[in-house]
């Protein structure tokens, strides 16, 4: 599991790649915490299309990023979850708290 990132005009985009479970979640959250501390972004986009697998540990990560951004007065949302992560998101109901959107890819 890896998190790549890009930053532009106040927006931090996090690219999730691989399998996000309890084993990988702690390292992922540390990486993200450091990136947020470094850029202090206004928006934080979690781009999920590279996820090969995600369980409820991923739900906890998404919620934590959302809360951190919220506390800073910023916004956070998730984009383009593949089918399996989307089913986990659906079952958890976090889409009532965090926006999950689908963007068109060129």
């Amino acid at each position: 599991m890896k998190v790549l990132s890009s930053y532009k005009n106040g927006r931090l985009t996090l690219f999730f790649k691989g399998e996000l479970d309890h084993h990988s979640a702690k390292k992922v959250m540390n990486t993200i915490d450091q990136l947020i501390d470094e850029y202090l972004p206004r928006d934080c986009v979690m781009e999920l299309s590279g996820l090969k697998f995600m369980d409820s540990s991923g739900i906890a990560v998404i919620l934590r990023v959302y809360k951190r951004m919220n506390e800073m007065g910023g916004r956070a949302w998730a984009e383009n979850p593949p089918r399996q992560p989307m089913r986990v998101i659906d079952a958890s109901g976090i889409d009532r708290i965090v926006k999950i959107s689908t963007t068109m890819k060129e």
Partner: protein
Amino acid sequence: MKTKNYIKMEFPSRSVNEGFARAAVACFAAQLDPTLEELGDIKTAVSEAVTNCIVHAYPDSIGKISLRARIIDNNTLEIVIKDWGKGIEDIEKAREPMFTTGGEERSGMGFTIMESFMDKLRVRSSPGRGVTVTMRRRIAVRTAE
């Protein structure tokens, strides 16, 4: 119920084994010819149950986890995951969505996901003696190509 095939596995509660456990069950389930979606559901449920053993049953030590899977009548996969750890006092409460004793790193959605992804979920525990989670999922029979 007649057992058509089975596997029994045992491994220590190391987090690296979460990925192993769900992959191994997926390999075993392959003989039922599941769709990718069915396989994804089963892997997710296994991941939740095994993670619970690692995080909640043995919070400060490495303990033993047992995972059994078998194929029973009606193209159904049964999975039993067992630990010998802390146990759960109030199972009903533990199964509620968002309930967690695990702090910020847990979402409290583990049992909710197991329940919604599998056809049946049974949780048994006596405090101090561990937890046994039994799950069943029927795989739809598809007509051959």
